[in-house]
């Protein structure tokens, strides 16, 4: 049965078990539009979706919201606890409020947008996800980031990009300190272009690429050097 596009499935988590919501989202060919009310800070809301659906969550959520997301668009009209969109594969996760630690952690693809601030370890070990933060991020942002782009419209706390591999970081405000092997890099036209495209996709209209600085790996840390073989 195909749902009519205009119909919205509304799930009240004060009435329906969270497992029931997630089970229904995991069914083959789920309805396209969902609205979740009274999330009440519950953990693991709308995790593991692999479908072209849109989920609007009306309120604050706990840990790991929209984790492992594939294809779906999940929008949280509130704040998020630890690990929002952790290990996201594709699709889009938007947080209208703030996000706690480890937003977008280990993400492989897709887009994570945090309109407010994100706390420590935002984009830790990111592997291809794009993350756009409208506010500022906490310490150790993009720690061991391997691939993908992290855009911060505000400031970044200490230890940005520690032990970074090939991810690209763009920060508009102050960077309190760079982590090991992370350096500022030249902003070339292709970077302005990709940053402009990311800001547009994230719906950020009050920032222009020219205001940002680019950071990335100095590539001194992660390459094997035969001269150093004895110290490995």
């Amino acid at each position, binding site marked *: 049965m195909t749902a009519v596009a205009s119909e919205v499935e509304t799930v009240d988590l004060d009435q329906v078990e969270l497992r029931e919501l997630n089970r229904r989202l995991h069914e083959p060919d789920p309805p396209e539009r969902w609205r979740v009310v009274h999330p*009440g*800070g519950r*953990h693991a809301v709308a995790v593991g979706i692999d479908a072209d659906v849109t989920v609007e969550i009306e309120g604050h959520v706990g840990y790991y919201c929209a984790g492992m997301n594939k294809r779906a668009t999940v929008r949280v009209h509130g704040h998020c606890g630890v690990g929002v969109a952790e290990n996201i594969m594709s699709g889009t996760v938007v947080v209208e*409020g703030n996000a706690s*630690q480890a937003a977008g952690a280990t993400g492989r693809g897709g887009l994570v947008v945090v309109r407010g601030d994100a706390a*420590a370890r935002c984009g830790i070990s990111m592997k291809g996800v794009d993350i756009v933060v409208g506010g500022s991020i*906490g*310490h150790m942002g993009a720690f061991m980031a391997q691939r993908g782009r992290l855009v911060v419209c505000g400031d970044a706390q200490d230890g940005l990009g520690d032990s970074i591999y090939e991810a690209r970081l763009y920060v508009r405000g102050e960077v309190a300190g760079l982590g090991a092997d992370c350096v500022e890099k030249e902003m070339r036209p292709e970077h302005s272009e990709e940053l402009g495209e990311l800001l547009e996709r994230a719906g950020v209209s009050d920032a222009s690429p020219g205001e940002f600085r680019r950071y990335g790996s100095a590539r001194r840390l992660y390459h094997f050097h035969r001269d150093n073989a004895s110290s490995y």
Partner: protein
Amino acid sequence: MCGIVGLFSKTPEVGEHLGAHLGAMLSEMGERGPDSAGIAIYRDPVPSGHSKLCLFAAEADYDWIALHAELRGAVGSPHEPEVRASHAVFVVEADAADARRWLHDRHPELRVMSAGEVIEIYKEMGLPSQFVSRFALAELEGTHALGHTRMATESRVTTIHSHPFSTGLDLCLVHNGSLSNHNRLRIDLRRAGIEFATDNDSEVAAGFLTWRLAEGESIEEALENCIGALDGFYTFAVGTRDGFAVLRDPIGCKPAVLAETDDWVAMASEYRAIAVLPGADDAAVWEPAPGAVYSWRRELVAQ
């Protein structure tokens, strides 16, 4: 793991239902700490010249009335104790330290959970939801309160290993995390005259605060000094006579969420414990920055 909750009332209405609200918050943190639970609640200030002691007896059906008769004769106690499960609250017409010494000498079977003019600490083993009903938290009024649910990692599960830990008159500490230099620090603090009842790491943090406060520091200064002295990870919530304070370790290992409305200020390990409060949907909610001390005091809020 462990869970922490705290609630500070800004209106009489919230104060009237403080115990019920705190109980709901505590139950919500049951999964973070199923081993034991405890609260410190600030309520019913005693008249000038009096002190309030909250005592714990391990023995079931302890004869609190007989103890009251003895206490009345020894140090003066105007009315019978308020018994709450394994605990009883006594009001004495004496300095808290004198009453404490008397109890220590005459009744070593008892533990003084808290002492002061307003604080009452209750704590017990078992599921937090059972604690909430067993100690009838719903009937308690007060101005502010802290609670803790424990998942034991560093030491045994007993009543006295449970939180909150008293850190002096009308002071207490709850802790989520674990400390790695507590043995060394305990030795140093014992030399400074601080007494410890257990081998628990959190009690050492409480003892450290007791020591710094005795040295004349404010609660905020004492907490800031924790950052340098304590090795480990922690979110602390400290209850004081007129408010509470919160500190997370500088790395931000352990979670904390703060929320405020016109009616209350709340803190919890996770937002879901705050979601049960009236008006939570419209509260300002934020995560305290690592290594920063946050505090609320009644006179400051009243301004």
